[in-house]
């Protein structure tokens, strides 16, 4: 199964998220993550949806999404033409003896230490999926007590914006 990233512009109404989440669950599509936030236009929100499946699934998801009245535009962000990041907050077990090792890993991976307590260290790390999974693999042996992930956010490279892409398709 391949992994695809869709960037979706939607009306910023209450209820839009449940329409989209409902569509995915109803039709049995697998999504890894979905993140959403306002754009520079407060009436429009942008979602980044990471999904798994073959190309036929991607085609169906895109078409079914496009049928929703609140969906304004859909763009597939190919990894080579976009950058993607996810923010993770993580609480790792670190008694006094291991604290230095954990701090060292954090340092190498440019994770920020947010809090240190007697038995744990809480950190923030941002990165693409490869960096995050490498980091998580390294801190795992210390015991991950708690983890919060935002889901992936992605944006296209180059001068062209998603609005340009939307206007182009309407012409």
């Amino acid at each position, binding site marked *: 199964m391949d992994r695809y990233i869709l960037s979706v512009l939607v009306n910023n109404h209450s*209820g839009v998220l*449940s*329409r989209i989440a*409902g569509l995915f669950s*109803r039709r049995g599509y697998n999504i890894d993550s979905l993140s959403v936030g306002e754009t520079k236009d407060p009436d429009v929100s942008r979602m980044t949806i990471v999904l798994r499946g073959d190309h*036929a699934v991607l*085609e*169906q998801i895109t*078409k*079914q999404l*496009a*049928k*929703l*009245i*609140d969906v304004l535009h859909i763009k597939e962000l190919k990894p080579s033409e976009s950058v993607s990041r996810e923010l993770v907050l993580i609480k790792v077990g670190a008694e006094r003896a291991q604290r230095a090792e954990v701090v060292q890993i954090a340092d190498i991976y440019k994770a920020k230490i947010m809090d240190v307590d007697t038995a744990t260290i809480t950190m923030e790390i941002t990165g693409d999926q490869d960096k995050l999974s490498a980091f998580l693999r390294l801190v795992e042996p210390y015991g991950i007590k708690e983890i919060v992930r935002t889901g992936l956010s992605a944006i296209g490279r180059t001068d062209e914006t998603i609005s340009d892409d939307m206007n182009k398709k309407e012409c």
Partner: protein
Amino acid sequence: MRMRGAKILIECLKEQSVDTVFGFPGGSVLNIYDELYKNSDAITHILTAHEQGAAHAADGYARVTGKVGVCIATSGPGATNLVTGIATAYMDSTPMVAITGNVPVPLLGKDSFQEVDIAGVTIPITKHNYIVKDVADLADVIREAFYIAQEGRPGPVLVDIPKDVTAYEAEYTYKAPKPISRHPERIRIQDIETAVELITNASNPFIYAGGGVNGSRASAELLEFAEKIQAPVCVSLMGKGAFPATHPQYTGMIGMHGTKVSSMGVSRCDLLIVIGARFSDRVVSKADKFARKAQVLHIDIDPAEINKNIQTYHHVIGDVQAVLTMINERITTRIEHGQWLEKIAEWKKRYPIRVTTENRRPRDIIRALNDLLGEKAIIVTEVGQHQMWAAQFFKYTQSGSFITSGGLGTMGFGTGAAFGAQLGRPDKQVVSIAGDGSFQMNCNELGTIAKYQIPIVILLMNNHTLGMVRQWQTMFYDKRYSATTLDHQIDWVKLADAFGVDAMKLGLDDDIQTVLKAALEVGGPVLVDCEIPIDDVVLPMVAPGASIEDIILSVDPITN
């Protein structure tokens, strides 16, 4: 002009030329009903026995008129009672606007009396829905709802209006409805040209037409196309009437209870031209065995239907009527397929819908009805064996003459849809062909047809069982008739009589013509309780999950 929300709603209905609505009042829609009362000269409100009946009536009305069907219900149970009707309309792409009341905005989300999140409930079964929380938005929301219901692939839209919004005032100015376009300019010429090339080069083309041809009012274009390219035509259940059943190129229905000729046509053609159809599992059955030898050319208005169930070789996205017009313009001379049509004709002779003792009576009743009414009839059905017999044995020659719940398969659809259709087309004779199982689900609507004297004929195919389920139990469950026998002897004639509807019996030995003639002469609502044998079956049949190539022609495997 400033006016209350309820009045704005009525004005917006008038903008859309709505003259008939179906509904049931209640606390949250009192303001709306007050305005309906004051505007009864412009808008006729039909009070149904149950909100489900109102939704099916709006659906039936929309299917025969091409206009948007409108139904109204109050909050909570009123709204949830519409749900089956909305889902039915969604699956069959009927343009419908459902208006529900809700509790006042400050009470929303507080589990108030008769509160339900109907917008949340209907997300999966509407094209779109709205909760109007500000009266200033109301007029534009109603306009958008009507537009969305009709534009592109039609479907139901729900507008939920809290009670205080119907009481508050806002400025209203008349706006003419936004025209609904078939958008021929959006159809890609390259796609049309490739389609024409495929059609021109095919040796054995076969057409499978669906409900989209009826929805798009494209039966004339389909007829021209099929005759130009000399291709045989099969239809899905929803496509009944899209192509005249009396035409020599017609092969009958395709699918679970389709004809063997249609199955053979699909299986042996080299180009399958699919028009306004969506490869339902009831048509395709086993997807990898469907149209194995053919390139599939799919024409549909909804891009999401392309490659959803069956991978296509080529497709054209657009309104079916517009696409067929463009293709017809490009095919200037008739393309002959003499040998192919001869082969089809030979199969038609060899494999007619086999009539045995197990389906003779329903066939004879439906054929007699066909002889008496012909093109004057609009046939509406419930769901089950009678529905399939009505599809198989009545010869539909006009688009919109067969109204059925194809996608959702809603038992209880028939009576509401039938009187909705009759009100939409008073020039026609609407006949609801029903089964005793389906009919009892919404038989309360007998009261509605009596109250308004809506002259529909209900032919109740009474086999005292849930016939289609029993048929499956006979064929696949070793005759273990679990919960399908309806042997509690309901006296349907008495029941109809209690509602004030004329009724008569057609016993197994009675003369069909005589009784049907008598029923049609009533000139008002009438029910005919037609006794049929309990073990009558619908054939042919493709067993669930089997290939359409393995269509069963007889219940007795030895004679198959």
